[in-house]
């Protein structure tokens, strides 16, 4: 279980302090598939980075399974079981797909094992395993590899930041299946996906709507979904400007 208690995060912006996350309290329960959604700029990626330890909150505590991890660095959190797929996958010169998967799995994966992860994200493993994780891969390919690294980690809390971005419609079905499978296999851990996609929202156990740095609503998927699909997202963002 992940608990975020009174989390605030601010940055220096032209001399002013800009609050991006505002006194946010949220609990992500075990064994659930949680989708975080909300308008662009609402603070979703910022929240994910706070969970992974890439940035530190200005105030508030982060508790993972009863343990306060607020002051832990990225590595220690990763080793405690936090996995994070970046919204923008990172590129590397000279590091191959198989190298990255081996680092993720924390062991000397056999090629066949590494291939399984790639197949899961819909990549023909043979063609990709020895490619460098650099700009020669397409945006969608990088995104799938990014997802595969988190699957390979097999941890108790996995956070995916907009996994569907850049993934074509044909493959979308598969992506949905990945998350359904992760949920089915992980009864003790949880999967958190940041997404705007109705199809992912539809399979969510829990939906959290984040807007303007705060939790706007949170609840069971079936209860929340009807309240957001009817509204126009643009109206939300415009009202944020007021």
């Amino acid at each position, binding site marked *: 279980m992940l608990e975020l208690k009174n989390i605030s995060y601010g940055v220096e912006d032209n001399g002013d302090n800009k609050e991006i996350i505002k006194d946010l309290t949220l609990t992500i329960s075990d064994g659930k598939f949680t989708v975080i959604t909300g308008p662009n700029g609402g603070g979703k990626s910022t929240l994910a980075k706070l969970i992974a330890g890439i940035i530190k909150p200005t105030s508030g505590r982060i508790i993972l399974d009863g343990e306060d991890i607020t002051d832990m660095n990225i*590595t220690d959190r990763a080793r405690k079981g936090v996995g994070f797929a*970046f919204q923008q996958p*990172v590129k590397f010169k*000279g590091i191959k797909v198989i190298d990255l998967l081996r*680092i993720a799995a924390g062991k000397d994966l056999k090629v066949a094992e590494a291939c399984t992860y790639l197949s899961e994200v819909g990549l023909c493993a043979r063609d990709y395993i020895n490619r460098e994780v650099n700009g020669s891969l397409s945006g969608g390919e990088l995104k799938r590899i990014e997802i595969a*690294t988190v699957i390979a*980690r097999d941890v108790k809390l996995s956070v995916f930041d907009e996994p569907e971005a850049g993934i074509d419609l044909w493959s979308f079905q598969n992506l949905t299946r990945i998350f359904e499978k992760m949920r089915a296999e992980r009864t003790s851990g949880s999967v958190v996906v940041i997404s705007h996609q109705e199809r992912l929202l539809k399979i969510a156990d829990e939906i959290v709507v984040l807007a303007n740095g705060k939790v706007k609503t949170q609840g069971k998927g079936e209860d929340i979904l009807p309240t957001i699909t009817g509204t126009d997202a643009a109206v939300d963002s415009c009202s944020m400007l007021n």
Partner: protein
Amino acid sequence: MADIQMDEIQKRMIEELADLHEVPVGAYNFRANSKLAGRNTTANIDIVSKEDGTGIDIRVKAGTKKESVHIPVVISASGIKETVYNDFFIEDDCDVVIVAGCGIHNCGKQDSQHDGVHRFFIGKNSKVKYVEKHYGDGDGDGKRILNPVTEVNMEEGSSMEMEMVQIKGVDSTKRTTNATLKADAKLVVHERLMTHGVQQADSIYNVILEGDGSSADIVSRSVARDTSYQKLDLCIRGDARCSGHTECDSIIMDNGRILAVPSLEANNVDAMLVHEAAIGKIAGDQLNKLMTLGLTEAEAEEQIINGFLK
């Protein structure tokens, strides 16, 4: 290494340099502490010492295909200072691999220095792959100094691929590579350089694209750590209808410093010359990504550097 006269240290240096665990097939010339330690020639490849004793001539007969030449040099005594001239005469229509390299193991107080001057004369339509590795170790106070000069003369339609690697243990180096390309000749260079401690490395390329259809692609990747210093000059001159590309991609760490001085000179309206250069520390998001996979910051750095220099 049966018929090679070298001690254990020297043999280990050879392994570092050329991945050689046994006597290579094909032609070779091993030089250890300024003496000849073993030589082999083949029907197509001849190696002879220069009469004045300053180096060797390597002659590859026209049409020689799929053969290799190894010419490693090791220095394991302190206080040696030598300049060696090696000339490669590759006749027309060859396809050969040449592996050179110099390792200095200096446990003594005096400086050891090897300045190798390699000249290549590459015949029409010949293909050469050249691998040069430099390596130093030993814990003496004496410096390990390597100043290689490579001169490449490429005839029409010839091609050369050079791999230049210096990753460890050389205190001071000034490497100069000059190349002149006739029509349709093609040069590709991959340089990998890493400096530590107070090391200093200068790497200078002067490539002249003389003939129509000639091309050069020079890619240098380097890492400067601690308080080391690198100066990278990648220069291409285009005198004909030609294409040239240089890329200088560097990572600085700690208090490392790098000066990149690229230059392009076009003397013909059909010369297409491009230069790219980037110097910076390891990207924060690269470290973050590997740390979210469970690596420590130091482990992440190591992975990134290893990949970068691969």
